[in-house]
């Protein structure tokens, strides 16, 4: 009798303790539950690597397009070595499987088609990364913190992030119009008010050109359309040099732009501003803006 009671108590205790470790979060596919603290994590977007690094967790694998330098330097310094699992658009499932992960973090935009396969490899949290806003990204970071069993640490980091951004904002002018654009060899994409970079710009007390509001995160523009936006500051992320802007500079229309007249064309690292996304990426963007405005 006593023994039976003992067993009962032990099982009860065990189930209780596992219940203590269990986390339950809402991801893009519904409720995700995990009853252990994950140790081997594979992330399929840079923003997730940023979230992990923000609470000092190193992923075993990152879909880094086999170009390690695409991971934000600040993130690389924290997480150390990892294995590339291929491109973000078509990560290699067999490499992911060979890493024997106990958690996969995937992007609903890119990886919905392989969600079922990923789940066969390891429990998979699927969140939005591509096309997310600044606020969405912070919410995702909070969810990831919870899944990692580091909710407290993540909340602390997020609070610290808010302070950091506040301090950067104090060093920046108020409500000055800033437009971020990606320049390639023969086209330009503006990142609108609803884009990640647009959100960071707003969070720092600067403003987005009115005309780009209510649009998708990025949009291809020609020189005439850029003139219609006519921002006070144009921040350029070149994916190649020379790029379209070098061509446009030779056209008379370019000289009508406010940025051309006032010399407010600035260059930044396109990778940081456009690909990375995350707590540390936002702080890097803020740092870049402070440098630009204190020139």
């Amino acid at each position, binding site marked *: 009798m006593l023994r039976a009671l003992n067993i009962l108590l032990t099982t009860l205790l065990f189930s209780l303790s596992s219940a203590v470790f269990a986390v339950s979060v809402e991801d893009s596919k519904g409720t995700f539950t995990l009853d252990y603290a994950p140790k081997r994590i594979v992330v399929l977007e840079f923003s997730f690597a940023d979230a992990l690094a923000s609470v000092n967790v190193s992923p075993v694998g990152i879909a880094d397009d086999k170009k390690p330098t695409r991971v934000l330097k600040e993130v690389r310094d924290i997480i150390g070595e990892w294995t590339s699992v*291929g491109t973000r658009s078509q*990560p290699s499932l067999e490499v992911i499987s060979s890493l024997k992960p106990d958690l996969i973090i995937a992007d609903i*935009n890119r990886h919905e088609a392989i969600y079922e396969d990923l789940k066969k490899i390891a429990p998979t949290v699927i969140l939005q990364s591509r096309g997310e806003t600044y606020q969405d990204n912070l919410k995702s970071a909070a969810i990831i913190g919870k899944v990692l069993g580091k909710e407290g640490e993540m909340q602390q980091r997020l609070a610290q992030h808010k302070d950091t951004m506040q301090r950067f904002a104090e060093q920046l002018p108020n409500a000055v119009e800033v437009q971020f654009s990606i320049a390639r060899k023969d086209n330009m994409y503006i990142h609108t008010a609803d884009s990640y970079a647009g959100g960071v710009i707003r969070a720092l007390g600067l403003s987005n050109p009115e005309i780009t509001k209510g649009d*998708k*995160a*990025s949009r291809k523009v020609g020189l005439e359309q850029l003139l219609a936006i006519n921002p006070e500051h144009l921040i350029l992320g070149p994916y190649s040099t020379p790029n379209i802007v070098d061509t446009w500079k030779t056209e008379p229309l370019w000289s009508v732009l406010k940025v051309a007249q006032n010399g407010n064309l600035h260059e930044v690292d396109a990778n940081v501003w456009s690909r990375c996304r995350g707590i540390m990426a936002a702080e890097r963007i803020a740092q870049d803006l402070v440098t630009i405005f204190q020139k």
Partner: protein
Amino acid sequence: MKTLLSSFLLALLVAFIVALSLSLGAVSLSFEQILSGFDASSEFYFTIHEYRLPRSILAILVGGMMALSGALVQGVIRNPLASPDVLGVSQGAGLAAVILMTIFPSVSIFWLPWAALSGGIIAALFLWFLCGSHSGAIKLAITGVAMAALYSSAVDFLMLTKPLEVNNALLWLTGSLWGRGWNQITMLLPWLVLIPFAFSLAKRLNLIGLGDDVATSLGTSISMTRLWALTIAVGLTASCVSICGPIGFLGLIAPHLARRLVGGRHQVLLPCTMLVGMVILLLADLVARIINPPIELSAGIMTAIIGAPYFLWLLFKVR
């Protein structure tokens, strides 16, 4: 005898590449490890049973079906440059898929194959509506090419106006076996029914090859045969494209290679074309997977790399 030997060698080649596909990849596996991969408790279970095996089977099915579809179209249009693409089916399917991905990005990816399939079939029905069943092969081909161009430009327009979804759409449009598995194989299985029907057309296709007049005087109904062959080709292409995206040039070059190997008798040509298609797609996917791991290229890029120069060579030769 020569044809029998060729077919046998082709089948052997298919088996060999399947074995290679199971063994090679980002992680190379030995024979014992491959065998252990069929056991659910093995650490290679996912790699073999859930990843490489279904992908190889899918390459066999899609390669065979697309190639067969190409042989049927070339058989009834009687033009070496013809392929399922001249029916506008892949482009119609592509347009439907891109509409779903760009205009309704929040719709679950589950619907993508169904949208593509309906797009392909609607494109075929529209072509039939435009041409009727009694018009000549040339009219059919030209109308089909024009419709295909129309669908492609609509795709371009959508991708220009919705840049955020472009990457996913472009990826799908190159045609790939990445991320496809047992579910997609089950979706393709019902379409295999079309294959015996295609084979049963072989003799009539031989007669059509002699010219419309000869075929008619020998008792073949040209328009009925053409309708059947094209319907089957549409079904095969649309189902494959809905699963893997439009894998280019496969339906064009596989029948040509097969014809060089075994000649133009459709009883032999059709099965051999399927084998050649399987070899090409298996090889394209294998190379796409292992050329620079862990980067996965699309099989469609590989078939285009082989197919495009061949197509050009063909163009010059035909002139």
